[in-house]
């Protein structure tokens, strides 16, 4: 299980669910300046950025993954969260996503000069998503829409690596209990295993980030515990990879983080030799 090769011929599938409800306007992690919606936009842009670079090869990009991004909250509806040229699209190859950001900013990045110092270098930094916050939180409906996409995907890729659904939210669903919907989604899968659901919980509460816990002990509130319950256990490969990346994943670790930017989750799938010293 969870051993199917991910390649251009047998691509993997990421479905992101973004909470864009009004409550996401609240402060993030006890901050007075940063809102949860800002944190969410930063995380999803970094995830897409890292995934694109991971799939880049030479002067092109390989479609190792197909990606959908579902927003829930704006006008209390659930729909594709893509804007600009991708508006209305659901699952698209990573190349289409990488080549169609909303905009590309020029940023200055400090880079190792090889002699123990840093040099400033201009880099292109694409953005696909802006911070959004309006309406209710139809998280259960988002999981339903995700399940429909998963069903279509596994019908077309019955032997492929099962889809991974990553939900980023503050946890306060307004359309009923999302746990049964998440469990229903996890019951779908390919011959290679059940769909994996990960949750990234962005809270207004201050507190230390929590990454990949094996139990809900120590989680700060009922929303965190609920999202933990909705999260899949990591596969043994993922636990190994998380450890290599310096994340505290033990036996039974689940795909759940609290107030953290787990951009390394993009590295949890194997697409070939990854140098240990490539950071």
């Amino acid at each position, binding site marked *: 299980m969870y051993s199917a090769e991910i390649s251009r011929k047998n691509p993997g599938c990421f479905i992101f669910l973004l909470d864009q409800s009004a409550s996401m306007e609240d402060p993030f992690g006890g901050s007075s300046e940063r809102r949860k919606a800002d944190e969410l936009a930063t995380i999803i842009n970094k995830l897409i950025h890292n995934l694109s*670079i991971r799939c*880049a090869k030479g*002067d092109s990009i390989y479609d190792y993954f197909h990606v959908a991004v579902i927003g829930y909250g704006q006008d209390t509806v659930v729909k594709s969260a893509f804007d600009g040229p991708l508006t209305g699209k659901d699952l698209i190859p990573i190349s289409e996503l990488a080549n169609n950001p909303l905009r590309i900013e020029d940023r200055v990045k400090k880079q190792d000069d090889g002699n123990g110092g840093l040099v400033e270098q201009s880099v292109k930094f694409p953005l696909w998503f802006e911070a959004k916050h309006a309406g209710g939180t139809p998280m259960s409906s988002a999981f339903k829409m995700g399940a429909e996409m998963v069903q279509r995907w596994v019908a077309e890729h019955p032997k492929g690596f099962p889809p991974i659904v990553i939900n980023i939210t503050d946890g306060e669903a307004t359309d009923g209990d999302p746990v049964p919907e998440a469990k229903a989604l996890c019951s779908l899968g390919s011959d290679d295993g059940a769909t994996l659901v990960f949750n990234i919980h962005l809270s207004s509460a201050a507190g230390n980030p929590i990454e990949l816990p094996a139990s809900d002990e120590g989680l700060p509130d009922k929303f965190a515990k609920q999202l933990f319950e909705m999260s899949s256990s990591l596969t043994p490969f993922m636990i190994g990879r998380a450890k290599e990346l310096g994340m505290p994943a033990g036996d039974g670790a689940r795909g759940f983080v609290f107030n953290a930017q787990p951009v390394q989750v993009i590295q949890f799938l194997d697409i070939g*030799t*990854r*140098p240990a010293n*490539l950071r």
Partner: protein
Amino acid sequence: MIDALHPNGAAPFSVEAFSCQKAGNARTEYEDAWAIRGSDSPTRCRVAVADGATESSFSALWAALLVESFVRGRVHGPDFFGRLGAIRRLWRRKIRGRPLPWYAAEKARRGAYAAFVGASLNAVNRGWRAVAIGDCCLLHVTGNRELAKAFPLSHSEEFGSSPFLVGSMTKSDDDPLPHVRVSEGVLEPDDVLFFASDALSAWLLRRAEKGEPAWEAIGPEGIRTREDFEALVAQARDEGTRNDDMTLVRLMRRADREKGAS
């Protein structure tokens, strides 16, 4: 794909190379590299195999530059990895100026990576000295088809998907020297040295650990043609070996020269 050398009768060593790209990929996407120099030299022969990492860009170029530089040079110890400056500059020069989309430029900025094993053989005393980083292996097999040494990894469970590899960029926290492994041995009559990329090495070691035929399968009695090698690769993949580029270089002492010398 098979690539074979046909050394003349005076050559002390017979060296052959076989290679095969990942299933489903084009031949141009093959990212391993091998190089041989001096198989017909009366004094010295050098062989190297490198495996460019899937998860880095322009790694086939980097692997090729590493093996070419090694076999054309004279350094055979860890010093090879202390003098990567010229090879790194050449790698950067070859990709500089390309109009790359943002993701390709960012990936290239992070550098290319490769596993490497290289050996220098003394044609007079038949001694070999090898240097390696990562999981490409040298396998020294005796005339009675027993494994005398596997270097730098010796057991199949040591192979993972994230080895430390040689990078094409100079980074202060990425010094290859602490990761260099060295080894040496002497090639007795009928011994064979194999150089193999990681997936093939792991499969061969796994078979040997289970008591299944391994070394006969890649010896001259097992592989003569490109088709033989492709059949072996297909068997390895059928047995669950990761779909990867596969490379094998086989080096033997030449029997006719042994007889002539005696």
